[in-house]
């Protein structure tokens, strides 16, 4: 039976899911593992609502075959906070009262988190370049932009405090 399953490491926890039929990470997360914080928006990689981290890199989980995820670290919105303690990106998004409907926000925050991890001092242009692939139909872009800059500052402060 083992060869017919795939081990997924998601938010530090190991899950075993069937290898077949071929399917993408998004629906495995949502429908098989109950991790519904990762959202479905278009299924074609346009909107960014399903963004998760694969080994720390932001990817569209609707475009990632589950077979490619075996043995790699997946982080979803559910894994961003440490218990009660919100991630600096979550703190900044909350502080700016950023979400409206909220459906795109997991993807926005995962994209922002990967950006800040790779580039602790993103310029405005770098923020736009990184966030430009994440749709927000409610139109909270001004606050998202502000929240990402603020999150970078919060993350730097947290790093320096350690």
């Amino acid at each position, binding site marked *: 039976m083992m060869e017919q399953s795939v081990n997924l490491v998601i938010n530090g926890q190991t899950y075993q899911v069937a290898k077949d*039929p071929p*399917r993408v990470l998004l*629906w495995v997360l*949502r*429908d098989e593992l*109950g991790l*519904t*914080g*990762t*959202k*479905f*928006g*278009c*299924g*074609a990689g*346009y*909107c960014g*609502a399903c963004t998760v981290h694969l080994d720390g890199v932001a990817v569209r989980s609707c475009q990632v075959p589950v077979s490619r995820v075996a043995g790699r670290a997946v982080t*979803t*919105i*559910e894994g*961003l*906070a440490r218990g009660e303690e*919100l991630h600096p990106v*979550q703190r900044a*998004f*909350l502080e700016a*009262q950023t*979400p*409206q*409907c*909220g*459906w*795109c*926000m*997991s993807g926005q*925050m995962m994209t922002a988190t990967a950006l800040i991890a790779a580039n602790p001092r993103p310029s405005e242009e770098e*923020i*736009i370049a990184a*966030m*430009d*692939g*994440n*749709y*927000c*139909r*409610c*139109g*909270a*872009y*001004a*606050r*998202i*932009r502000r929240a990402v800059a603020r999150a970078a500052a919060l993350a730097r402060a947290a790093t320096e405090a350690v």
Partner: protein
Amino acid sequence: MSQPPARRWRVSRRGFLIGAGVVGGGLALGATLGLPWLRLALADVVDGAAPPTIVTTDPAFWFEIAADGRVRLAMPKVEMGQGIHTALAQIAAEELELAWEQIEVVPSSSAGPVADNFGTNASNSVASLFAPLRETAATMRELLRAEAADRLGVAPAALRVANGAFFVADDPERRLSYGELAADAARREVPAEPPVLKPSTAWTLIGASVPRVDLPAKIRGAATYGYDARAEGMLYGAVARPPSLGATLRRAAPGEAARRPGVVAVVAERDFAGVAAESRSAAAAAVRAMDLEWTEGPPLQQEQIDARVRAVPGRGVVIQRAGNAAAALRGPGVITAEYRTPMAAHAHLEPQAALVDVRPDRVLARVSTQYPLGTAQAIARALGRDARTVEVVPTYLGGGFGRRMVSEVAVEAARLSAAAGRPVHVGWSRAEEFHHGFVRPPTHHVLRAALGPDGRIVALEHSQASGGVIFPFIPAPLRALFGADFGAWRGACISYAVPHISVSAEHVPLPIATGAWRGLGLLANIFAIESFIDELAHIAGADPLAFRIAHTGDDEHGRRLRAVLTTVAERAGWGTPAPAGRARGVACSIDAGTVVAHIAEVSRKPEGGVRVHTVWAVVDPGLPINPDGVAAQTEGNICMGLSSVLFERLSVRNGRIAADNFGAYPLLTMRDAPAIEVTVLRSGDVPYGAGEPPMGPIGAAVANAVFALTGQRLRELPLTEV
């Protein structure tokens, strides 16, 4: 609440009932607004008399105070990002003298405790619920006060109240919390006299930018939307879709579907074909294996639709008239311009979704819907059940924008669940969203005006034609009663003081389903009117902002328009030169009682197209319950409006909507989102809506800025030909 005994209710002056009851050992109080909206005017007739028999006694909202002092407010309105749960809780907590942490909001289902007859739409929630919510909360407070006075042996007036507890004014140690009072207070009579409401000068929560109650869960990805609803033993459903617009099912048979792996039920009926299976992919694959024959619709083209939408002065239903515009617009010198807006998709990022569990005796559904009661009725009709046995619980909504006033997906899940005998979740794909359901209708506008020798507008005529917005959803007799589709002509009336005005609207039935899109006709109508006002200002040789102010009236709307225009001019530095290569445009509107002015600063992109750098927005919603919430709605309306104004055009090709996904229908992204500077004004103590009105002027503000920049007048959305 089905038949409250006489002493347990009071008819308020505003025509709603307030009644009290005991729930679980605590005090519960509700107000009934359930007047069918067409009968609202009749409410005054029965004011103060016996409980009107025409009204439902379902409460419009419902408070409960538990023994631990927590107050639960059952929400009649759904949360789709507009912050309504927070705003309504602020209003209630204010009058109940609660600390903000003491109030808890719970969604209400179609079965109660409050059943909303109207749905959440039209920027109407705060405006319609403000007065009854305050009065009910104050009534509850006074019931508790009377109980506290008896128990403490003092006169009610000797009591003070704060943070959910009464205390004796000159002996604050003697206190009783709401939790301690609730059970006994519930046995008291509702006072016959309306309670004294808190004066606005004493408000601490109303008018405060309280953080949204729904955001902590949304930040953690823990908020449940319709697409996230789960149940033990659930299946996933997929539904066969017509191959073209107007296609109908001629014959449906299960074919090979039932033999597919994971398939539990196949439904092949005259008007519906679908599958319930153990996974989404299994269900989708099985639907493709069904044996279906369709009668195709006509090979419709966009040009055929647009050709029908043609406003002709004098042909529509007159909806606003002053003086004699027809006479004033005879003769030479009449200025005429035509404007067009295209079809648009709602493109809410959470596709429609529902989880429905059909059991022998009852149906339970969880749906991202703007209209739980209407959705419950639709399920009941489809299954041939009594609507009272169907309960629709609204989840959070991943955007609504009018599309979720109708939730077909819940009916689909219900039909599949009925066949499978298990809960079924149906979630639409993005292609299903683009191809099925309804779209924002195309519009056409003819504006005509005459200027006097002093450069003032003497006569102004707006003739508009639009596909249906509300009409497709109401019965023919009501359509006849209204004449014109009041959704389509939202925003079509003239808010300026002009001697001769004529506004007419024509409903155009179209071979494609059209309906409500955020703001209904607002974006299109204000784009046409405010672009034309700009044209007139330039012809008159006047500054466009001064020209608008010069045409405001002496009434309340005129005063408020002047205030937003003056303020936005200050904020944007109107009159000072824009940076090199940029120009500014202004536009304003009044919608749902809320007055808005925008100034947009634009440039031309090197590759063509408009870049909007900054939008200064001034919004006067009367009384802003939550100013930061109003600001957020303003920012969102500007961005969603800009997406439509700059990019979006939905087209029909060969009988199908051309776009399958966002590749062919791109939305505004962060790169094209402007800096937005919002100023929220407070002009009184009555709140108006904020969920749609700030969208009104954005199209014209940008088009007028483009004219200021290039001298090119763009009269059709989207503004791509720059």
